[in-house]
């Protein structure tokens, strides 16, 4: 489809040229890719399978903490480091830092996959709104547990090691990581939904009992979908932790009332259950978020809450759904004008 090529070209050029044109906004654009990744991975279970999770943010925080723990504990005693509240200044050589970072990001993803498989056993029997509440409960529980764990700093958090590169490369370095992860996630999802997995996922969304009766191992599909989401959420959490330089459970690692719900809002705004919906929704939402942040400051979250409510109440089909109903022929939906004629013939 040519439209899609134009989108890829536009986003690709923006992704590469954007930070060069607006060097002061590099981290904001990095946030945009993080939000694209969050919304797209939420959509694997949320939009395509009908399992609306409110707790995907769990993996974001867990990945972040796993990565931080590995980076620090490879060369320091973790408990001692966090207990010192930043008195111990970590000095890493370049190779130490990058080995720790890469190991941390991968481990963050892998641990989240394991966690999602375990949690999936418990929560995937729940249907509909119970699943949403159950996963929300998981996220809140994880936040409280991390807050009580003193080895990882508890409520006070951990300050992350510094990037051993000149300071002007710092934002660019994390930008590249975020962009690459978002692209990887997008193409993984694209590939997943071009295989049999996509059909099975949509069958589960439409009628799970029938899908099961047809012999689809629904639990395994649900777990696989969630595990992919968890892997990317864990990796991006690990990157985000290093990007922000300081992590703590309440507002950065498990930001339940903000990013935890924004990712759902973005997927819905763009149109859930489509490949491009979450991407477009995330871009639109990020623009609203940044403009309200600039002009309204304290009222930002109130405006965002309003956007969420208005979106759900009055604009449920999302941008993609709206486009589809406006221009059906661009989506390959053929409006068969010959039906009336052929009826006469037959």
């Amino acid at each position, binding site marked *: 489809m040519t439209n899609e090529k134009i989108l890829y070209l536009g986003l690709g050029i923006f992704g590469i040229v954007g930070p060069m044109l607006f060097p002061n906004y590099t981290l904001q654009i990095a946030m945009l890719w993080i939000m694209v990744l969050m919304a797209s991975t939420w959509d694997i279970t949320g939009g395509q399978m009908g399992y609306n999770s*409110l707790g995907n943010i769990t993996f974001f925080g867990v990945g972040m903490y796993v990565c931080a723990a590995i980076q620090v504990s490879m060369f320091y005693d973790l408990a001692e480091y966090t207990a010192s509240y930043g008195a111990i200044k970590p000095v890493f050589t370049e190779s130490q830092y990058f080995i720790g970072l890469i190991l941390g990001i991968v481990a963050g993803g892998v641990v989240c996959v394991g966690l999602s498989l375990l949690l999936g056993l418990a929560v995937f029997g729940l249907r*509909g*709104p*119970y699943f949403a509440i159950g996963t929300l*409960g998981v996220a*809140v529980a994880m936040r409280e547990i991390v807050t009580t764990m003193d080895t990882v700093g508890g409520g006070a958090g951990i300050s992350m090691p510094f990037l051993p590169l000149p300071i002007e490369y710092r934002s660019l370095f994390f930008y590249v990581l975020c962009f690459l992860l978002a692209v990887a996630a997008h193409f993984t999802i694209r590939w997943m939904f071009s295989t049999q997995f996509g059909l099975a996922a949509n069958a589960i969304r439409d009628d799970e009992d029938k899908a099961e009766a047809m012999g689809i191992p629904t639990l395994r599909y649900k777990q696989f979908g969630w595990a992919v989401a968890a892997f990317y959420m864990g990796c991006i959490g690990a990157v985000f932790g290093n990007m922000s330089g300081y992590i703590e459970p309440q507002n950065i690692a498990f930001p*339940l009332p903000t990013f935890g719900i924004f990712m759902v809002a973005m997927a819905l705004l763009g149109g859930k259950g489509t490949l491009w919906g979450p991407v477009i929704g995330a871009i639109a939402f990020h623009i609203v978020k940044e403009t309200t942040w600039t002009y309204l400051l304290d009222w930002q979250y109130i405006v965002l809450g309003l956007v969420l409510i208005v979106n759900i*109440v009055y604009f449920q089909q999302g941008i993609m759904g709206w486009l589809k109903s406006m221009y059906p022929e661009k989506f390959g939906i053929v409006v068969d004008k010959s039906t009336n004629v052929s009826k006469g013939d037959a």
Partner: protein
Amino acid sequence: MFELLFVSAPIMNVQLLLEGIFIGSVFALSAYGLALIWGVMNVKNLAQGDFVIMGGYCAFAVYQLGIHPLFAIPVVIVFMFCFGWIVYKLIIKRVIDHDMFVSLLATFGLSLLLQQLLNLVFGPEVQTLDSQYGVFLLGDFVTVPKIKIISLVIAAAFATAVVIFMKRSRMGQAIRATAQDARAARVLGIDTDQVYAFTFALNAAICGVAGVLVSMIWSIQPFYGIIFSLRTFAIVTAAGLGNLPGVIGMSFVLGWFEQYAGVLAGAEWQIAASVFVLIGVLVWRQIQARRHRQVVR
């Protein structure tokens, strides 16, 4: 801690059990409200806890004028009733026919909005309203603040009033009829839209009263709402809809569980404990459902 509770000072158990009842009575109020709207209109309100906190802050506003928070209760009932009515007309009415996740998400958006609004207006500090009633000693060790007893009485009286209202009044009958079969009720001339609006507003008022009590016997903070919502969900899911004794009993059980978890595992585990109860209840329900499906098979 274990030793302290059961060997050296068993009297502490009495204290914990009493605290559990006082807190549980407040949980029971908001859980009853949730069971009401869940049963009548099939809306799951994730802003339930924020309604509670909002009621508490209404009392706080009245308290700052120099009026005793107990006198805030009538004001809060009227205010929250109107607020609930407006929320129904603007939001709930439009999501009621859609699938349940939509109502869940819409109310989550509302919850976000209320949190931030309260944070802007009243600031992020933890507040406790001082009722100046002093404490009263039960035996030598157990201290009971008088306000907690008063709040228990108020909660019981208010709950009784609501139950009697539901049983006796014309509106109560209409609500119960709508809960049984909305279509039949509509055929018989009941304006179900009006009934839904009233039910939701009543729920907001009940939460408001619970909030006033919480602000006096515990503490309120703009971001405490979500935990309250999860607690009420745990209670209602465990007790089942339309099971009033179950709701009250489960509220006390949750109150006790939280108190014991707070003492045995440390105060910071208290919130996590209530979430574990929720997850436990959901998983237990799931096992039940699976057994049911197997029987059907």
